[in-house]
């Protein structure tokens, strides 16, 4: 079947099998390999992308379901060579170790900060509670999101 999906502002038209999952469509068809696949069973959250502005686990969404819709992936966070504050926070606070969970964490963090510019630690932990990190123990991820929140509000973020 033919689908047209707008990914990070750019329209893509592809012929696919209906059974292709969104995560594989992004990685294999569009070569956007920033989105990771960990469990493939909707448990780990490495595959989180935005579908029409809402974070979803793209291993459990059909690419066909995204036909005519907007998808946003981790590749869209940096703009004109400047990292998004959440990305900067992950660097400053060592929020990534192996980096496998990071794309999903970043997409959820960006979404949270867009809704709540000053989230409590508890709110951050709740927001990422469907995402697994095997390395950091989450402490530095929470710190990274707090860092982004603080610097973004003060508009102090530089590249």
């Amino acid at each position, binding site marked *: 079947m033919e689908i047209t999906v707008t990914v990070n502002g750019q329209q893509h038209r592809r012929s696919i099998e209906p*059974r*292709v999952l969104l995560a594989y469509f992004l990685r294999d068809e569009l070569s956007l390999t920033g989105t990771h696949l960990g469990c493939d*069973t909707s448990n780990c959250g490495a595959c989180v992308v935005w579908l029409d502005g809402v*974070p979803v686990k793209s291993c*459990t*969404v059909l690419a066909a*379901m995204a036909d005519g819709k907007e998808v946003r992936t981790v590749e869209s966070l940096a703009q004109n060579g400047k990292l998004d504050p959440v990305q900067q926070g992950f660097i400053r606070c060592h929020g990534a170790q192996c980096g496998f969970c990071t794309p999903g964490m970043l997409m959820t963090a960006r979404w949270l900060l867009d809704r709540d510019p000053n989230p409590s630690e508890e709110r951050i932990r*709740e927001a990422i509670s469907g995402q697994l990190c095997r390395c950091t123990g989450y402490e530095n991820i929470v710190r990274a999101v707090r860092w982004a929140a603080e610097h973004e509000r003060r508009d102090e973020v530089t590249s």
Partner: protein
Amino acid sequence: MQVPAQFEYERATSIAHAVQLLGKYNGAGRLIAGGHSLIPMMKLRLARPEVLIDINEVAELGGISRVDGELRVGALVRHTELLDDDEVAQLFPILRDAEKVIADPIVRNRGTVGGSVCQADPSEDLSAAFSALRAYAVVQGAETQRIVPLRDFFVGPYETVVGPGELLVELRVPVRTGGSSAFLKVSRRAGDWAVGAVGAAVWLDGDVITEVGIGLSALGARNFVAVEAEDFLRGRSVSADVLGEAGRIAAEHCDPPVDQRGPADYKRHLAATLVTRALQLACRRAGREV
């Protein structure tokens, strides 16, 4: 890499269109809403539909409204929407309690109320919560619409009265004053399915329980409800002893499965304790301290 077997994909644009597509494929078509139960099952070949009928674009299936003394929750309402709705939380705190502990925020962005009850997984939390509230299911077929009490909706594990040519349109919950509700769940870790969960709704006239609903999830209760405990409570005055006895009766009449989440005797103990505590919390919220 886990990929479902091949299927054809159709996108329904209205309820009528969805029903027409179900008729066209005559049993070979399967509805897909959030896909968060069906897609994992298809990856494992536990389900192998020939045609998927996507209802995500059917606007008529969405939305939460209050009409004629009923709360109406569209089949396509996402968990997140139900969780965030303040009127729902005020009318039926049991629903917010339950939604808070269903899966995780990202899964809740996608999974739907209709998909949850139609999946009829014995561990589904909303099936217990809406059964406690004595909700009704509105089921649409090619010719007729049926309104089925949710307590008659579940035929068995993973099976409901929704026929191959039908779909669930919405759930309706009668709004009655003088009561409140609560939901309690024990799970092994955040976001996991229940070891056991209980929802309770009570309506009081002074001290006397005029009506009550008790829903159990993952505890092997027939149709997700504890009818014997409800019958015991109706007409009695609220007291710690009475609520304790209701828990004991509910535990006696359920048949918890033995699985990796625990042995039967533990789950039976959990059933008794959770029923009593959920009733206590519901009574407290209704203004009657126990």
